């Protein structure tokens, strides 16, 4: 149900959830995605961060088979991240490596799309999946509950619901729509677009920055962590499919020897093998040192597909 909030209500929400959850969001001080301890340090609206929520959900160096009894609240993130969290915990369900949805609280906020993001491609601007959604209005904030858990928190503010309030749609700079099925089909036919893949790979440094910041890149390795006292624990290590050793088998035989193979594998994983592991948050575009732009690449793949149809 929709409620009209004032500034102090946000602080009230913070103190309510602080009792049950570890709160993560973008810090006003450091402008970074981190654990938030004080309400005044939190950015409530348009909390965009370079590091994705997987940093907390699916931690690097996390110890395998250790009970996850953390309850985590993500506050202020845009809707693409909400969508990414849902995808990630669905993909890794039953692995025991990510928390259940019930242990998460997702407080999403209105976002201002920038040049890099393109959630409209995949329809992840859909306003759903959140527990609470907050948008700014002229005199304060509008809060909408999306789930029973969200409603329970808003009820504690003891406000009257205001049914006249509406969720504002996200305003995009341009409205490109992609057909997901079409992209899957085109990426599957690697041989037909060899020139394109080679061209992209020639510009790519293969540094793997995109995989580190992607909220939906979850490839990992399993490693033994040896401690000084002689004990050891298995833990997961984030891995990048751009790493040379990623597809290595015995006797150092590499199954994806060239950068173009690894780059293609990244796109193949995202759009063919387990579609769709992209929500259009644009983090990889900002992180890429070679200025490769997945948005333009997808558009040009689609264009090439149209050409080859003619």
């Amino acid at each position, binding site marked *: 149900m929709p409620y009209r909030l004032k500034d102090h209500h946000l602080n009230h929400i913070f103190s309510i959830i602080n009792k049950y959850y570890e709160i993560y969001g973008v810090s006003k001080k450091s402008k970074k995605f981190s654990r938030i301890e004080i309400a005044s340090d939190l950015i409530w609206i348009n909390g965009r961060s370079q590091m994705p929520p997987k940093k907390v959900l699916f931690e690097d160096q996390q110890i395998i088979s250790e009970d996850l009894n953390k309850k985590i609240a993500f506050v202020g993130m845009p809707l693409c991240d909400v969508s990414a969290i849902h995808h990630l915990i669905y993909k890794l369900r039953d692995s025991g490596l990510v928390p259940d949805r019930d242990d998460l609280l997702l407080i999403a906020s209105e976002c201002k799309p920038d040049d890099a993001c393109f959630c409209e491609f995949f329809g992840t601007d859909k306003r759903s999946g959140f527990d609470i959604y907050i948008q700014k209005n002229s005199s304060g904030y509008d809060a909408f509950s999306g789930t029973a858990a969200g409603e329970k928190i808003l009820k504690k503010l003891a406000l009257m619901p205001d049914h006249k309030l509406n969720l504002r749609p996200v305003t995009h700079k341009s409205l490109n729509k992609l057909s997901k099925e079409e992209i899957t089909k085109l990426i599957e036919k690697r041989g037909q677009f060899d020139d394109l893949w080679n061209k992209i790979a020639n510009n790519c440094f293969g540094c793997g920055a995109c995989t580190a910041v992607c909220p939906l890149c979850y490839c990992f390795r399993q*490693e033994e962590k040896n401690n000084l006292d002689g004990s050891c624990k298995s833990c997961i290590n984030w891995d990048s*499919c751009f790493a040379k050793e990623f597809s290595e088998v015995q006797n150092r035989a590499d199954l994806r020897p060239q950068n173009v193979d690894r780059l293609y594998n990244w796109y193949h994983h995202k759009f063919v093998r387990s579609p769709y592991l992209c929500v259009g948050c644009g983090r990889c575009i900002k992180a890429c040192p070679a200025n490769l732009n997945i948005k333009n690449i997808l558009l040009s793949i689609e264009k090439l597909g149209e050409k080859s149809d003619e």
Partner: protein
Amino acid sequence: MNSPFSYREYKITNKTEVAPDTFLFRLRGKLKFDPGQFVQVKFPHIGEVTLVPCSKKDEKTYFELCVRRAGNTTEKISEKVPGDSMFVRGPYGHGWPIGKTLEKDILLISGGIGIIPLMPLMDELVKYRGNFGKIYFLAGFKTPHHVMFEQDLLRYKKKISYFKVAVEKTDRDWWGENCMITDLIKNTNLSPNINVFLCGPEIMFRPCVDVLLQKKINPKNIYVSFERRMECGIGFCQHCTIGKYKVCEDGPIFTWSKIAPELEK
């Protein structure tokens, strides 16, 4: 929730060197598996490897795992001795599709260490021989020293209608052939609707399949067991992918018609 990363501890009771750098570990306890499935074995402080059980399926008191020294982890594992423990989870993947081959001729082709997943299968086939057509067995090794499970093979030789073992090079008296595995296949008369089970190093798949296809065998009936360096073994980590398939979850056994287009990606 039960973590899928939970291991059972098994004690090593016996260790033998079956070929150069290749060790067979016998472990006390029962492991329920289908021929062709694999297990993930963890050694604390060292790491985890993917191994395939090679003992009989219905053995109640022990099972056997074979390790070849090929990298850092297997190097350390080969130093293990009876009394040490292995931590096993699994089995994972789908085994050889024996049910689909009832009443039909079966050809087993193995190259080198690829014989391991075929040993429990062989045992099943011999035991229930009446349910299958003719059984052919072809195996290739580098030298007679590399021939694994020689005693078992000699025993099966008497029970199977067509049985050939070849080595590439030999410096001693050798009871089998002296040629490449592809020559063995070429020289065998095969009916086109035979089912083929193939396992070995990946480099031998294409030449072998080419010969089989020349013999008009349907690629849908050629089953190939793939090997990848797995990390999780249960479909999460993405290290063992071939195109859109994951070897751990969808395999490790694929029909050639299904996997061949993906190998090019």
